[in-house]
């Protein structure tokens, strides 16, 4: 087991030391000793973000965070699963629609775009069950200025639908400044939404 003594260090130094050790030595089990609660939580979260299962002990003024990655058990899986919300919608089905393209199907691009426009407009027939609309890859182009469905998407958003637009994708196409609707998001949010949804529809 690799031990790191990060006592006396303030954030973010303990996380950095842990990160460096993981990169250089790739230990299966690592123990980090810190002396304040903030560093303890940060180190614990860092290890968990890297797929480690963590255990916490307190010894006097010190916190011992032990992370192990070779015993990925159900316990770890459970800790990362979000509980369903207590909001009224939790009673209904929650449908997440993920668009990874700006047109439907292959073949004629013009037809594909027309179908996509029609699809997004017709989605409202799902009613309250439509819970998240996520745009990734080429799909983000539907959320920028000039998009044929911009007004429709704005209407959805006004009606309380949460629209998530992949930040990495916008950045890739250099469209960050041109996004007109929805919340710029990241993979963690998208994955969390998938977990919470009752149904995920992928286009």
């Amino acid at each position, binding site marked *: 087991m690799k031990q790191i003594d990060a006592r006396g260090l303030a954030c973010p130094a303990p996380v950095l030391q842990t990160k460096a050790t993981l990169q250089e030595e790739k230990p299966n089990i690592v123990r980090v000793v810190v002396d304040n609660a903030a560093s303890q939580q940060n180190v614990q*979260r860092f290890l968990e973000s890297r797929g480690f299962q963590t255990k916490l002990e307190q010894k006097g003024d010190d916190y011992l965070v032990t992370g192990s990655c070779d015993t990925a058990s159900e316990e770890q899986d459970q800790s990362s699963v979000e509980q369903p919300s207590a909001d009224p919608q939790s009673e209904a089905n929650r449908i997440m629609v993920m668009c990874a393209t700006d047109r439907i199907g292959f073949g004629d691009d013009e037809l594909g775009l027309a179908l996509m426009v029609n699809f997004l407009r017709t989605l409202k027939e799902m009613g309250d069950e439509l819970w998240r609309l996520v745009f990734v890859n080429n799909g983000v182009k539907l959320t920028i200025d000039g998009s044929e469905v911009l007004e429709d998407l704005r209407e959805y958003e006004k009606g309380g639908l949460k629209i998530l637009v992949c930040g990495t994708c916008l950045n890739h196409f250099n469209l960050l400044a041109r996004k007109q609707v929805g919340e710029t998001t990241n993979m963690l949010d998208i994955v969390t939404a998938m977990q919470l949804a009752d149904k995920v529809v992928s286009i």
Partner: protein
Amino acid sequence: MMFPTDENVLVGLDRADDAGVYRISDDLALIQTVDFFTPVVDDPYWFGQIAAANALSDVYAMGGTPKTAMNLVAFPVKEMELSVLRQVIQGGLDKLAEAGVVLIGGHSIEDRELKYGLSVTGIVHPAKVLIKKNLRLGDRLVLTKPLGSGIVNTAIKAGIASAELTDRVTHLMASLNRAAADIMSNFDVGACTDVTGFGLLGHLAEMVCGSGMSVRVFSGQVPLIAEALELAAMGLIPAGAYKNREFRESMIEFAETVTRSRQDVLVDPQTSGGLLISVAGHQVDKLVAALKDAGIHDAAQIGKICNGPQEKIWVL
């Protein structure tokens, strides 16, 4: 401790607000505030700008117009080149010029660590002072800058923020709340504060305390620096965020759908954050539209003021 006061003190230490307000006449009151800190960015010129934007913000949050300022400087003369200090002060001066504020003095001392900030004086009509504690049932909350600067600054210290992200957050911290304050003055605003060290929920808690109201925050609508969520999940969270959460724990209820990282961003201590405005419900869309028209693209409606359960913040 007892602080003597008089009838012209409109806002004083008895109800801590963003700045003190003293009535000079029936139609004029002085706003006074002071703030200084150690560098938040490596570039001295930008540090100067951020410190000035931050100090001016308290006057804007009170509904006032800043007029004059004085520098506060602590400088390690023996260890640092004087040119560094010159750049810090130039940054402050340029930001003051942008705000239409004149520097009329200052004071410096020798210290082991660089510190810079300003004392700012502004004016306001005594009837138009915007205090924190005036939440009205049905009002909506608007935030004018995205959250996450504390987390990003921690990532910068850790050397893992990209140059583009560093640049983006630097500009964000240095941007004035002046335009937002100008626009806000045309609307029916009940209360206002600026989001700084206590984070969004900490400052909101100050507004809620003693109001008899509760607040719902729609966490999905809260503008934030997109990268902050991932950085928070990696444990790059300033210690202040944990303190902020702990201090207001009894007032804040997070719905289980609010991810841990999003919670962290909501309590992340901000440097020179945006204005948090409580505006009449029927005007909120117009206010947000006006802010966006003025180039404040991140402005968003983030919550509403509700009847009890008493003085709780519900984060959905």
